[in-house]
């Protein structure tokens, strides 16, 4: 399929508004092995983990997170089977709820660049009680400094804000990425073309 990041910004049908995921999604959305994009025993498995914080710096115990990423070669999966892990298909998508202390983890692989020289990242979608619309962000891998420097999104951010999008590589090889919904370390959340969202803070 041919794609272009500069599609026409023509008129579109009014979207169905968003509403909060609420507190009671527990039996509906999380599912068995949702956090395991690969088996933890996979030779390339890395653990992506972190904590979700609110504006008072308290851990958020009822947030739901989804990730979407290419495989380690940068290929984007179109395989079915995200909801029913078969142990070998890499579908590129995962979902988990945070635990009572606001912590989450995924077992996945380091995404590869989707084109040579591109900075690899994992997409993250945040839902929570109290959050009326989903929040989108990117979790950049910290390893390729040159690719990070030339990334157009990161370059458009001031240094302190830019850091909120870059995961920390731990000595074990695992990735740590905390989400700050508010505060001095507030994560940069993204707005895409043709995707209206309303923070309610504009006045």
């Amino acid at each position, binding site marked *: 399929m041919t*794609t272009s990041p500069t*599609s026409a910004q023509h008129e579109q049908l*009014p979207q169905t*508004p968003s509403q909060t995921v609420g507190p009671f999604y527990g039996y509906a959305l999380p599912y068995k092995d949702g956090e395991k994009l690969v088996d933890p025993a996979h030779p390339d498995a890395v653990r992506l983990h972190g904590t979700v914080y609110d504006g008072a710096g308290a851990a958020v115990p009822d947030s739901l997170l989804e990730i979407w990423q290419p495989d380690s070669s940068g290929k984007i999966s179109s395989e079915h089977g995200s909801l029913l892990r078969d142990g070998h298909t890499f579908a590129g998508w995962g979902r988990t709820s945070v635990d009572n202390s606001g912590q989450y983890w995924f077992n996945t692989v380091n995404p590869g660049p989707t084109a040579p020289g591109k900075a690899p990242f994992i997409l993250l979608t945040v839902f929570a009680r109290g959050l009326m619309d*989903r929040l989108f962000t990117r979790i950049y891998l910290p390893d390729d400094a040159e690719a990070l420097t030339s990334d157009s999104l990161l370059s458009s951010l001031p240094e302190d804000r830019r850091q909120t999008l870059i995961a920390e590589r731990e000595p074990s090889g695992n990735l740590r990425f905390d989400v700050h919904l508010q505060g001095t370390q507030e994560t940069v959340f*993204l707005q895409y073309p043709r995707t209206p969202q309303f923070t309610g803070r504009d006045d």
Partner: protein
Amino acid sequence: MTAPDTNPDAATATQDQISAEIREIHRSYEQRRAEGGPEETSARMHFPPYRSSLLRSPTKSLHHADPEEIELHAPAFGERDVHPLEADLTIQHGGEPIGERMVVTGRVIDGDGRPVRHQLVELWQANAAGRYVHKRDQHPAPLDPNFTGIGRTITNAQGEYSFTTIKPAPYPWKNHFNAWRPAHIHFSLFGTDFTQRLVTQMYFPGDPLFDLDPIYQSITDQKARDRLVATYDHSVSEHEWNTGYRWNIVLSGSNRTWFESDAAAEEEH
């Protein structure tokens, strides 16, 4: 004015206080609209009458991102992921659940009117007494051993979905004193692009709790609020079996460049 209490269980404000806050925000929005301000087509994330939003909504503007390749794609789901019987919430246990059996059906399209084909739709809801199967739901209304309140389906080639379920009841919550949510069904949807992800709630026509509910009213524009309300559709009702509701869902716009060959390729997928 003192800062509102951010404890989600405080239940200190009265309904009159909450309603007055909602009215003031809506009045201000309508005034700005009259002065040529932008139309709001979704909910406000920071909406003080919904107390839980105070510490959980971003304080900074969302940062513009030009979609990269991965953001122009979405996870794919199919018959491997979802069994057809998961669309019927009334047959998941040994007996019939209590309540008004209903079918909710509709079509999922994107911002350009294209059907969202063969994509996952998830649903969850309270039972006919207003109780969720969830450890945090302590509302003293009965659980129904024959109703869990969760369902999934994959849209067909026209983007249509259909669930058989039980009409949920309103239930109390602790945003303010004597707060009640209008009856609603939660929906979770995916599009063709990562950016079209939507989680929302469907409501029932004529609910007397609409004006009182800070979650529903966090959508400041009446036209947008109306888009969350299903219509009763007698052609969906079945003789001596179920009532019927229709609710169509429009996702945000795709940022892909679409060609006729894409539709054909999707059809084969």
